[in-house]
């Protein structure tokens, strides 16, 4: 009579155990596919939120070096009001300040389209010459604009799309309720779509035109931008401005940066709360796994022990079962969310981040994936899930075989 021993290789042994795990998962396919779907969904939602917020934060920070050093606003009665030219002179006197630039900007609400545009006034010749030319798609309306140079503007792609719908893509008629007649503004160009995330709702016009639309008198400005060459001094100069003129508010670049950092702090947001349901469902599943095995599963463990399987082999079966589920789910969930965010541009999720505004930027975000995040996903899901499943199996496996088989 032949006598078999531990003849198979270690690899074959593991493979046989994995085979058996997969087979027993397949036997309980309804339950396991439900777990898999929940698991994929959880990983998918978490990584989608991480991807989108990560990319948006990267977008925010991509231009952070070009931000003004200090922005100065005037507040009265808790509201921002126009700032006068006199401040502009006084701040320039503060030692360490290289230049002060007054800005004119504001919003224009177009009732017909229920759209909110950002109006920004500047000397457009700066964009029309030099390297800045590259960021604008210059339109054929250049001539028309030249006729009345103070009423010309460059608009963002989102604005252009909206104006096309009301046949005003070449020239837009501005009208404020207290005006007698509307003022036509020639549109001389559109900001390139690459800059869309910043320029989408912009109407950049010649200073005089902006002053007219925003109804600012001569010598009045929206805010001031202060240039401080030495970054060490910025905070101090901001403090000085505040102490000399308590009605002024300063926003330094460091402050904007720290606001950016926490901007899409998803933990504070809507997404987490909507995800709570998924998280709880997942916890219930984990609890279900951790709290015990069904009588059929216990019986199976008893049988395996009775025919000579070691406890550790039974545990490996259970480990492989949950490890395979969580591995497949997390890889699949992450890949799925990558394609969802960066190929499909996050339909459904992006609305949460851009609100109900009329001017939607198209969402071609540049992928930004943090390896630390992928590692985190693995640590917080795969490891606890695969280990927790072992405990009830271990409990069943160390119980007397006889006892399990008699009682189940």
């Amino acid at each position, binding site marked *: 009579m032949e006598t078999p021993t531990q003849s198979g290789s270690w690899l074959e042994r593991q493979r046989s155990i994995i085979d058996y795990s997969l087979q027993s998962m397949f036997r309980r396919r309804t339950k396991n596919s439900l777990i898999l779907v929940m698991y994929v969904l959880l990983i998918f939602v978490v990584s989608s939120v991480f991807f989108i917020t990560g990319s948006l934060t990267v977008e*925010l920070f991509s231009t952070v070096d070009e*931000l003004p050093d200090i922005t100065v606003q005037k507040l009265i009665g808790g509201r921002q009001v126009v700032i006068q030219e006199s401040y502009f002179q006084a701040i320039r006197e503060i030692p360490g300040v290289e230049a002060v630039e007054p800005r004119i900007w504001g919003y224009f609400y177009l009732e017909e389209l229920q759209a909110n*545009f950002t109006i920004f006034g500047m000397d457009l010749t700066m964009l029309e010459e030099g390297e800045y030319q590259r960021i604008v798609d210059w339109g054929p309306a250049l001539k028309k604009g030249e006729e009345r140079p103070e009423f010309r503007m460059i608009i963002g792609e989102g604005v252009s799309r909206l104006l096309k719908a009301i046949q005003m893509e070449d020239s837009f008629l501005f009208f404020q309720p207290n005006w007698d007649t509307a003022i036509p503004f020639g549109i001389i160009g559109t900001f390139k779509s690459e*800059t869309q995330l910043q320029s989408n709702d912009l109407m950049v016009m010649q200073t005089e035109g902006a002053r007219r639309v925003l109804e600012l008198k001569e010598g009045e400005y929206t*805010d001031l931008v202060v240039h401080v060459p030495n970054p060490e001094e910025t905070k101090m100069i901001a403090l000085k401005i505040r102490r000399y003129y308590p009605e002024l508010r300063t926003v330094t670049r460091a*402050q904007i940066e720290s606001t950016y950092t926490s901007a899409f702090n998803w933990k504070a947001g*809507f997404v987490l709360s909507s995800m709570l349901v998924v998280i709880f469902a997942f916890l219930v599943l984990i609890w279900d796994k951790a709290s015990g095995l069904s009588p059929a599963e216990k019986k199976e463990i008893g049988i395996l022990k009775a025919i000579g399987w070691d406890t550790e082999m039974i545990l490996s079966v259970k480990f492989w079962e949950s490890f395979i589920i969580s591995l497949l789910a997390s890889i699949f969930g992450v890949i799925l969310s*990558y394609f969802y965010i960066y190929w499909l541009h996050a339909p459904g999720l992006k609305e949460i981040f851009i609100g*109900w505004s009329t001017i939607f930027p198209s969402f071609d975000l540049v*992928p930004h994936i943090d390896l630390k995040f992928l590692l985190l996903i693995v640590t917080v899901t795969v490891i606890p899930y695969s280990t927790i499943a072992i405990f009830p199996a271990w409990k069943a496996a160390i119980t007397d075989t006889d006892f399990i088989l008699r009682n189940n």
Partner: protein
Amino acid sequence: MMRYSSKLGIALLILMLLALVAVVDYHRQRAEYADIIWMRQALQKAVGLTDLSITTAARYLRHYSLGDLTTPFQDYPASLDHFPAGFVYTPPDVSDVPKPIKFGPLPTPNEGK
């Protein structure tokens, strides 16, 4: 009949291929980013406004890093938040704002740190 572990192997292989597609795509998109970033920086330099124009629903959302703590309540203290974008944002960081009402000599620049 094929062994279960072979089927799992094939499934993993397909997933790996998908992951590879994603990784390749990731690097392609990142490479294209260099030119885009130049344009964005140029625009930022020319038009010094802050923030992304992804939330145009309300003033305090559009340039919210220029807003202060009272801005969200622009109309009256109980005014409703612009849902959902206003809910996703955390309030602007004002921890670093210098306190204006402070008597005595100004601290020297080194003290501020």
